[in-house]
């Protein structure tokens, strides 16, 4: 419940910021730099005179975009590979699984660093990098849960009635593993936001002047000794988003898969 409302709140922030923000996000005005908290600037302004609250709101858009795109890449490619592995078995499965096992030795952010190193820094590239990391995560999960469904009686019955593997996958396998995938997607969404923030913080992700929580933190760090609060806000926003999504994931698991929640 709490997770859902936090997530809804962030979505709302992103939506509002598309049309309206309390202050300027892109414009630079030296005259208004480092303004303290006031009625006009609830959280003050940064070194370029931009309203911090507006930046945070606009940063929501960025994080949500990253999450949606990166998780979609992972979902489409990963679920496809996982279903293929599960339907074909044999060497196809072996190949796909060995490959995804292997990519687990490289942590999310490290592989993202390497991939952005190849593709060059930038918002789009960092999203692709995080998306690619998501592929083996979903591939493994899909294959594991799909294999369990393949052994069920109703799938046996479908096979006995002469349905093809492709049709069975669409009609029986996918609908049955959907809830597990949705829960995992929520969790990966949170991880994607964290990873993007880390990459932007290192200067490998979103480039100026587009607002991003990670980069705000990076910019604030140089000023940390005399403008400490500027470093506190964007991190708090990241933590809130991740916290909300994790809670949402837990909540969804309870609703969609009561068996799992009882075991916990």
């Amino acid at each position, binding site marked *: 419940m709490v997770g859902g409302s936090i997530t809804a709140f962030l979505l709302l922030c992103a939506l509002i910021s598309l049309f309206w923000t309390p202050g300027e996000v892109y414009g630079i005005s030296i005259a208004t730099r480092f303004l303290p908290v006031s009625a006009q600037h609830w959280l003050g302004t940064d070194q370029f005179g931009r309203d911090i609250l507006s930046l945070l709101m606009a940063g929501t858009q960025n994080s949500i975009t990253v999450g949606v795109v990166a998780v979609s890449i992972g979902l489409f490619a990963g679920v496809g590979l996982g279903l293929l592995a599960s339907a074909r078995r044999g060497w196809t499965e072996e190949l796909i699984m060995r490959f995804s096992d292997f990519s687990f030795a490289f942590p999310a952010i490290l592989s993202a660093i390497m991939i952005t190193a190849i593709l060059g820094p930038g918002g789009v590239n960092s999203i692709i990098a995080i998306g690619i990391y998501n592929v083996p995560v979903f591939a493994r999960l899909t294959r594991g849960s799909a294999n369990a469904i393949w052994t069920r009686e109703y799938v046996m019955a479908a096979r006995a009635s002469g349905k093809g593997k492709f049709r069975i996958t669409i009609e029986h396998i996918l609908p049955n593993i959907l809830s597990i995938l949705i829960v995992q997607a929520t969790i990966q969404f949170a991880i994607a936001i964290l990873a993007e923030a880390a990459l932007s*913080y290192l200067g490998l992700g979103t480039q100026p002047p587009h607002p991003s929580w990670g980069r705000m933190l990076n910019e604030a*760090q140089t000023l940390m000794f005399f403008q400490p609060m500027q470093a506190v806000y*964007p991190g708090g926003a990241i*933590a809130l988003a*991740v916290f909300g999504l*994790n809670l949402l994931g837990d909540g969804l698991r309870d609703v969609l898969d009561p068996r799992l929640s009882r075991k*916990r």
Partner: protein
Amino acid sequence: MSVFFAKRFMTLLATLLGASIVIFIVMEILPGDPALVILGVEATDEAIALLTTELGLDRPALERYFDWIFGILQGDLGNSYAYKVPVWELVEGALKITVPLAILSMILSVALALVVGLYAAANHNKASDISLMGISQLGISIPNFWLAVLLILYFAVNLRWFPAGGFPGWDEGFWVCIKALILPAVALATVQGAILARITRSSVLEVFREDFVRTARAKGLSQRSTLWLHVLRNSMIPVITVMGLQFANLLAGTVIVENVFHMPGLGSTVLKAINNRDTIVVENVVLMLAAMVVVTNFIVDILYAVIDPRLKAHDI
């Protein structure tokens, strides 16, 4: 027993070999000619060709790969393209920061996880359990680099207990160095510890439902002795599994947190090398990181066998 070790060790070597191939291929695809980057855009084609030959980059990829691998086996990591010094010299100092940092944060996170996890499990469904789990959920959500910034703000800037960044070097004395590592280690350990604490708690609660716990209680052991003598060891298996899996993330976190503290560890080494297209340095550092992950998981596998005698029998 020896069969068990041999098998695990072979897996370790195979994984490392696979990792080296992937890393090499990735770096081959990486756009940007090292010679061009070193000499700058104004360099003549001849100069670039000369340097390419000098660095040995004109030789076929396969030959360079085997040179690299056989070099590593003989303890030679090759020479940096950008700085023309042995890679080991560039990396040695960085390793002396990153490895102790990773170990220190690992120890801290395990200590945190055990204390919090066991306490919460022992007070299952009481207020202290519920609030600890709420806090740990929050802990998981905090980006470690932000926590690092907050720790600097409070403990280094406000209280002045610890240095805000940099690393004095081990020649300056052991405690000075540990003091410099404490804040980054805490930043890393909090997130890891929060994850592990949750696993510890649920694993302990799970084991408490086992039949042998009832046997222990029927012997006359108190709840507390049962926890220490019978539950703890059995519940450590999932904890260690996650610990192994999380180690890769811990290392990645180290790369970022080092950056927050301006420490010249492996993180800054690899970022600098990527910018310089110093491929050989990148290859070696990434392989080192992969090796640390693989070795950690090897240790985890051995710990399994130490904890659970059934696994040994299973594998032989």
